[in-house]
């Protein structure tokens, strides 16, 4: 377990954002009631939000539930208090990865998203082959899971047969501007 005092400024920013997002929640539970994966969650969304309200960010981020969330926004759409519950889930995942409390398997969602963004930063558009390649290597290095590496390999040939794979991905012409946009947004 890492302890709270090791928080970096980035942690604090995420925590603060999460608390801000969670502030108006009055614990009605509608988010948990409508969540398509609520049954599989160890800690249901409204409880995660309550933990954040109480300042137990690390505890909330340690829940397996945040990795079950499929970002479907049902919770956000129905919340009577306009709490953006899906965004809170994002924040918890990010927090968990930053703190290193996510298991290698759980890390994957965030690794995937980061690989995705990295991909766009370089090409301006998604290069699927490269993304999957990178993601799989990273995820593999992360959890050394062989099945993961080959799982979709079965689909690969089928996709190629259907003309669904472009081995050479697209790039935008003006890649410099993309790089600058990323730089400006990361300041």
């Amino acid at each position: 377990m890492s302890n709270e005092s090791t928080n970096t400024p980035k942690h604090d920013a995420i925590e603060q954002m999460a608390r801000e997002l969670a502030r108006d929640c009055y614990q009605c539970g509608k988010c948990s009631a409508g969540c398509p994966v609520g049954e599989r969650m160890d800690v249901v969304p409204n409880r995660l939000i309550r933990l954040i309200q109480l300042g137990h960010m690390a505890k909330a981020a340690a829940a397996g539930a945040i990795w079950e969330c499929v970002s479907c926004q049902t919770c956000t759409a129905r919340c009577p208090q306009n709490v953006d519950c899906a965004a809170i889930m994002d924040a918890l995942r990010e927090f968990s990865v930053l703190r290193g409390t996510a298991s290698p398997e759980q890390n994957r969602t965030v690794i995937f998203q980061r690989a995705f963004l990295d991909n766009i930063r370089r090409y301006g558009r998604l290069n699927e082959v490269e993304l999957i390649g990178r993601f799989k290597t990273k995820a593999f290095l992360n959890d050394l899971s062989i099945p993961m590496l080959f799982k979709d390999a079965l689909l690969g040939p089928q996709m190629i047969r259907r003309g669904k794979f472009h081995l050479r991905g697209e790039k935008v012409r003006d890649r410099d501007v993309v790089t600058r946009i990323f730089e400006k947004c990361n300041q």
Partner: protein
Amino acid sequence: MARIGVFICWCGENISRHVDVEKLAEQCAHLPGVRCCLTYKYMCSEPGQNLIREKIREERLNGMVVASCSPHMHLKTFRKAAEAEGLNPYLVEMANIREHCSWVHHDVKAATAKAADLIRMAVAKVRRNHALSPIRVPLTKRALVIGGGVAGIQAALDIADAGHEVVLVEREPSIGGKMAGLSETFPTLDCSQCILTPRMVEVGQHPNIRLYTYSDVEAVEGYVGNFSVTIRKRARYVDISKCTGCGACWNACPNKKTPSEFDFGMGKRSAIYVPFPQAVPARPVIDANACTMLTKGKCGLCAKKCAAGAINFKDQDELITEKVGAIVVATGYKLWDIGKEQENAKLAGYGEYGYGTYKDVINSLQFERLVSASGPTGGELRRPSDGAVPKTVVFISCVGSRDNAKGMSYCSKICCMYNAKHTMLYKHKVHDGQAHVFYMDIRAGGKNYDEFVRRAIEQDGAQYHRGRVSKITEENGKLIVRGVDTLAGEPVTIEADLVVLATAMRPADGVETLAQKLNVGYDEYGFLSESHPKLRPVETNAAGVFVCGACQGPKDIPESVAQASAAAGKVQVMFSREEITREPEIASIDERMCAACFTCVRACPYNAIERAEIRDRAGRLIKRTARVNPGLCMGCGTCVAVCPSKSAELEGFTEQQVYAMVESLG
């Protein structure tokens, strides 16, 4: 010549500790127009007042300033004293040297200097005061009650029993309101009809009550004590003075397919109908949209059957004017229809609950009808879709209430109670059934209320889940209710046969228009505003207009009735006098100067200014002008501030007076 007396109070040590009163008196004695200036220990005490009266007499004062406490404390006292001595009370001013000076400034020099300024201002003002006399307006001792629900009924009966005439206007064909359709009522579970019907009959028979049903208030003119109200009596096509209520007509009517308003669409009625058997008046009305005689000129059966000859297909709306002195608004509430169609874009409706899509998702007033002995199922609980007896029923609280995202942010206050009631009534009817309630908090504040809810849980086995429901779907004739129990921390899915939504209580349709006619304020939801939530709960800011019942905010029957009696009490207080006196500190307009721009007409918050014409004897128009109606003006002074030609003036705060005060500081 001004002959002003200045009376400076010590208030024991309250003033004299920080203000050098003697020095102050010396200074003030030399102010222009001041005739005498003296100090006393307790000016408001009897010897103090006597001192003042003595001076008024001796010095023949024509104005006076008391420098003591806040005018909100003792202005009335000193005005009375002056009046007793023959000095016009509006020639008395106060300088607040206690609350605004000695109590807040502890440096004697500075406090004394400020006190001197305050007195100087008051003297400058009082030199320009006018003698005024209270405005007396005559009073019509008749009351109008709008809305004949339980609140309107109670108010009408109280006022009528006190010996005053009452005009009761109800827009439905019968009085009774929502209560007439309820089954049994919390917290005692007595039958709603049994307690209400006798009261309705009393209204119908009371010699002091003139009842207009199927009628609307069209226009309101005049002011407190003297309202003139235009009532539109909608065409009923039945002459109720001839009709005996025999029922031959509605039994004969072939058009029996109209959804009954009284049963919230779950039962049917004929084109000529009484809304429910105990209606008052127990006289039918023809629904002009449903009657084929009126739409296509074919039928006329009812007229043939009517032995009394009461049916009149040529009936027309009728406008009637009634003069009243006071108005009680009791227009009640409606339940929010959360279906797809919403009257305003901000309200999104609740697609997730499938109300209006699934037949077995109903609202709580519909449930009342389904368990009512007089309801469409004769008191047997059968669900709308297939008439089956529901074995699992889910009640959902706070639907549209306490919902900032797409509903009302307020709590509807009564639904926690009737949800508990509904689970009990359900269990009493379906012994092997299971009731579930989804709730966020249980709000059961009131005498015997929480005990009532506990009984529903402990004796009648209602299963309460703390949490909201997210979505309802229908699968094989079952309603799949996806909720949560936040206390257990788990989603809960219930397969229900019937779902009852406790939707938000909202003010009755059209209340805003009515409020505008009456000049009564309302909140963002349309609930009428009382003058003061604690101290003037049944008065409004429009003089002579009172509110009671659920039109002012969500309320149950006991509260509605209590408030109705309170409103009736206020009306009686008003009617206990022969005329109304009002403060004379109101606006007037110099009609010679008025440029007739009517800026003031638009600015006046009380619509107290009217457009008038000045004509010569031959009737030729000389000029137009604005004119203040002294019965309506509340003396806010807005007109004075907006008038570009400086023609408006406010007694007590005239331009001269206010300018003199400012200038005295220079």
